[in-house]
């Protein structure tokens, strides 16, 4: 997988829970964010790491299905799901030591939001790459 370009914070990010942790994807990769349908065939459940949860597991009230723009893939993600457009955040690079790992798993960078004295750090992921990793 070619190394993707660094995400542009100006476009904003969609924030949610996936792979059992807080992640972000570029907002311009998303067509829509919908409620979870009763029939989930064709929906990739990426809430936990592979093997961490069964696709038949119940969904919570905050979970959503994210429709990706280019591929048309639908991803079931954990909530809360929200869009960050403005605010104090920075995009940090993945260290060179982990560059190959990042390319393999579609990790594009780190989204850092400052909140008073604390930092909230999320992985910025390529959602299509993540979905492929789930097979």
């Amino acid at each position, binding site marked *: 997988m070619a190394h993707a370009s660094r995400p542009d914070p100006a476009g904003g990010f969609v924030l949610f829970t996936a*792979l*059992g*942790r807080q992640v972000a994807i570029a907002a311009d990769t998303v067509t829509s964010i919908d409620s979870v349908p009763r029939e989930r065939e064709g929906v990739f459940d990426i809430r936990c*790491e592979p093997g961490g949860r069964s696709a038949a597991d119940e969904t919570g009230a905050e979970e959503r299905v994210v429709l990706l723009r280019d591929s048309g893939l639908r991803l079931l993600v954990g909530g809360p799901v929200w869009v960050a457009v403005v605010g104090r955040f920075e995009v*940090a*690079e*993945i*260290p*060179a*030591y*982990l560059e*190959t*790992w990042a*390319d*393999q*798993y579609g*990790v594009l960078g*780190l989204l850092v939001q400052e909140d008073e004295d604390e*930092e909230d*750090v999320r*992985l910025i992921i390529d959602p299509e790459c993540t979905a492929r*990793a789930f097979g």
Partner: protein
Amino acid sequence: MESEQTERFDFGEKGALAGPEDPAHAVGDGRSGFVFSVSGNLYGIDLEEVETAVGLSDIVPLPWAPHHVLGVMRIRGAFEAIVSLERILGTETDTDAGRAGSGATRPRVLLIRSGGLKAGLLVDRIEDVTDVGTLGPCPAGARGQVAVFSRGVVRWRDDFICWLSAERILNGTRVQA
């Protein structure tokens, strides 16, 4: 907090201690470096291979990361990979698993560097920054992968300790394509 994180071991880009030259550096073929402990085992590494030593702060875990990678941590404004030396050397025991410095009194991260690569070694305690004697070969039957990632052994006080190589650690453990 930066002021708490960056202690007196901040060497900057050249990796040299600020201050007057230590005459001992110019004598013989001994070396200077950090001596540190991990799970009761002592190790050393060359001074010039350590960019900085900082206190442990929040490590952000990574999905699907190699077993020896604990996550990333911010050091001097940039995020660096933090790795477990025990897992790299294959010396981790069941009691050490997941410990990651949690039981240590003064856990530190040594940011090691070689050829453009950097990673933070999580250590329990920095024992000394000093000159040591010349290198000798690793003993036969050294535990795990110790011989693979070390330059040899040196004498420090009453012990012989394994002297690690940042180049071997970084190039030997990074994920390959």
